[in-house]
């Protein structure tokens, strides 16, 4: 079973945490922690704002899954491209989306990434190389595959990455994407975020065989990693990207994790066994990284720093105006086509040297 496999990946009883990747500097490791703290902090703030009635619609978060989008996106270069999903807020943080724009997005403000057109994590900053998700899961797998196809057509040393959930592996687009990418040996990385549930539906109702077996049946490597260890996710994606850039084709990376909150803010998760939650609570990805860095880092100071940034961003976002209704019908059609931009995200130093 996937969950057991994930838990086996590290030992919760032992307090010292080994490094997984030789490719990360100490500064990188701190950055991983900072990103996860930021994701959690932003989402907690957003949940508060939601309860205050300041976030319209419903609200989805990735509590407990911070290591996946953090580690995976950290392994990608500025010139790479990302499709981020609803549990992947850290992908946007890593790529450099300003925190106040994220909070404004949730609140439907004019300064949000989609300027109020779309909500929740349905966004991507086009200047930062991120395509925002559509709700239909896992449609973005094909979009990422198409980006990789263009890279290959043009002979560019770039890769695309997409996240998707365990539930969405049941849909046809999952199959079409994996098959297409394998047949054409495209530089694309498929990150399966196996968080044990699809809304209320457990894994056993989605599949009978671990998806990793499927990767092989498509002709690509499948790698399963501890999705609560940002460094393990990083290393798996780094290696997959290296293969991709070298012409080795796609990789399926399974990050085994747990959705620690309800599907959305309204969901009390009654269907999740309490022991399962308790087990996973022991394996919090942020605490794991903190233990890894405890000896050399003032964790409290970092937490405070992150919190201050979130507070400041909240203040800015709360002052932002709602969109002007007169603009509601603008922009259905484009006047010109500007491709996604690279951005200049802080982390890009890593992958640039690798590429």
């Amino acid at each position, binding site marked *: 079973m996937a969950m057991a496999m994930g838990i086996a990946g590290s030992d919760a009883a032992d307090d010292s945490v080994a490094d997984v990747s030789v490719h990360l500097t100490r500064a990188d490791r701190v950055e991983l922690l900072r990103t996860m703290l930021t994701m959690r902090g932003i989402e907690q703030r957003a949940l508060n704002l939601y309860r205050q009635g300041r976030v*319209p*619609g419903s609200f989805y978060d990735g509590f407990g899954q911070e290591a996946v989008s953090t580690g995976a996106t950290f392994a990608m270069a500025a010139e790479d491209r990302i499709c981020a999903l609803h549990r992947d807020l850290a992908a946007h943080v890593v790529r450099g989306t300003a925190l106040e724009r994220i909070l404004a997005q949730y609140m*439907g*403000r004019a300064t*949000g990434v*989609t300027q*109020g*057109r*779309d*909500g*929740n994590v*349905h966004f991507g900053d086009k200047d930062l190389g991120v395509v925002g998700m*559509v*709700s*239909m*899961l896992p449609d973005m797998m094909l979009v990422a595959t198409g980006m990789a196809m263009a890279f290959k057509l043009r002979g560019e040393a770039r890769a695309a990455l997409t996240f998707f959930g365990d*539930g*969405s592996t*049941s*849909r*046809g*687009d999952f199959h079409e994407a994996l098959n297409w990418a394998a047949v054409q040996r495209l530089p694309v990385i498929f990150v399966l975020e196996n968080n044990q549930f*699809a*809304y*209320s*539906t457990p894994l056993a*109702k*989605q*599949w009978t065989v671990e998806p990793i077996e499927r990767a092989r049946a498509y002709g690509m490597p499948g790698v399963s990693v501890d999705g609560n260890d940002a460094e393990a996710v990083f290393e798996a994606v780094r290696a997959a990207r290296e293969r991709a850039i070298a012409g080795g084709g796609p990789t399926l990376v399974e990050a085994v994790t747990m959705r620690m909150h309800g599907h959305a803010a309204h969901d009390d998760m009654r*269907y999740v066994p309490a022991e399962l939650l308790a087990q996973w609570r022991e394996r919090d990805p942020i605490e794991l990284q903190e233990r890894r860095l405890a000896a050399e880092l003032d964790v409290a100071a970092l937490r405070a720093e992150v919190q201050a940034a979130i507070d400041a961003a909240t203040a800015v976002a709360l002052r932002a105006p*709602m*969109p*002007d*209704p*007169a*603009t*509601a*019908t603008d922009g*259905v059609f484009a006047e010109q086509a500007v491709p996604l931009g690279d951005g200049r995200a802080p982390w890009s130093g890593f992958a640039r040297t690798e590429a």
Partner: protein
Amino acid sequence: MPELTYLQAISDGLRTEMRADERVFLMGEDIGVFGGAFKVTDGFVAEFGEQRVMDTPLAESAIVGTAVGAAVVGMRPVCEMQFADFISCGFDQLVNVAGKMHYRQGLAVPITVRLPSGGGFSGGPFHSQNPEAWFMHAPGLKVVAPSTPEDAKGLLIGAIRDPNPVVYLEHKNLYRRVRGEVPEGSYATGFDARVARAGDDLTVIAYGAMVHVALEATAPELLDGAAVEVIDLRSLVPLDEAAILASVKKTSKVVVLDEANATCAAGAQVAALIAERGFEDLDGPVVRIAAPDVPIPFSPPLEQAVLPGVERVKEACRDLLAY
């Protein structure tokens, strides 16, 4: 008669028909133990078991396609899309397999596809769509859209009993906001229009949530006492052309109201019908009100600017009455 919400009436209809006919079973994502995203099937697993209240994998094409298969060997599947928007992923099976089967082969496909549709609560571009026109434009599918709890139950039972594939639009914004008396027991509402309010001066034609907007916007006190007739179509395929044309004949002025994007919407079909076959009765343009052709935005001021509301309907009626 008990008073139920629109949502409770849907549950009641499902439960009634499942008790009466063991061929009826439900398929959908999270409809089992969880009771569905909107809790329409809350408690159903306990009463009917996991087999008849089937939690499916996340796979809309499979939901519709397997329902077709089950139907042609004698079952009466009722499929729930978690949101109407996701029917795009099962579109092909619905339109090409289910819709064309009887014409091609004389083989009936008695499936019901429930589509929680519509906007008004910041659902954004992927949780607010009104896709009915796509299916009106696909021969072989029936399409119904109740506006009241009573019809929500009766049309659902009618859909389940109908030997054809029926697309059943349940408007999310009515789920808990609308209540009304609902007859107990089993009854099927016919697929025809209903006069929601009679009047002689002008006709507003609507369905689903827009019926309530129409009624509110045309209260006599808002329109200097004008008597506005409101037609609730209830069924879009078949379309009750006789009822539409009779009302136009009576009032000579008509507003067609639609929450969906305007172009090629249900309202376009109704307006075109009137322009052809009611032309001689018209004393003014066939006024259409619908959402503009944009994805439904998330942020409340934008969404409100896009969705047809009471104010816009009232103004249109006022103008047309003065025409």
